[in-house]
């Protein structure tokens, strides 16, 4: 069984469209994340949820809206897609450490490659 699974793996769409990426983890983790990896391989955190509550929102345009229906799922919806949104989006999860820190080992999905034409 895949620990962190994302769908779809590939997404090709036109500018201005709306698309969603889904993520599910079966590790029993409390915390889930979305990271964006650009063409130069820079990996940047976008959002973090703990037990369905948004705890990190890194100055991401409000066209990006994460949703966590339960602690095992974190979806990412993107409105009005732009060329610059083309990237690989990674979902990840982790345990919340003692003291509330969420900086332990991250488990990543295989990524969703979004191409905006």
């Amino acid at each position, binding site marked *: 069984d895949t620990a*962190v699974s994302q769908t779809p793996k590939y997404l090709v769409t036109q500018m201005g469209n709306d698309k969603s990426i889904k993520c599910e983890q079966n590790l029993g983790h409390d915390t889930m994340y979305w*990271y964006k990896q650009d063409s*130069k*391989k*820079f*990996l*940047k*955190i976008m959002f*973090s949820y703990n037990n369905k509550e948004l*705890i*990190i929102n890194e100055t991401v345009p409000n066209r990006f809206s994460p949703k966590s229906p339960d602690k095992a799922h974190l979806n990412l919806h993107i409105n009005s897609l732009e060329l610059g949104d083309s990237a690989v989006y*990674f979902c*990840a999860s*982790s345990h919340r450490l003692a003291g*509330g*820190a*969420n*900086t*332990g*080992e*991250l*488990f*990543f*999905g*295989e*990524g969703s490659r979004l191409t905006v034409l």
Partner: protein
Amino acid sequence: SQQGEEDPQALSIQEGENATMNCSYKTSINNLQWYRQNSGRGLVHLILIRSNEREKHSGRLRVTLDTSKKSSSLLITASRAADTASYFCATGGYTGGFKTIFGAGTRLFVKA
């Protein structure tokens, strides 16, 4: 802004040689982690070293941490062609929320 900066950006070695990658960071940290990413795949956690530790080993991996210099190194001994991948350091700590922030990565190519 990126927290970690890896050096070198790319490294090409022969199978059997050792590979050393360095990482520098800017702010105080709770821990530092190294991840591996094969082409077209997700990142896989390799090793975590806490801020009060100086060295850690895992199989052919050796990680050092120097918090006074805000730097870390990853040594892969007796490299294999299968070690070809990108390696990322990531710092865990509190910077406006508990986050794990990644560097730009070192691309390692091991020639058979």
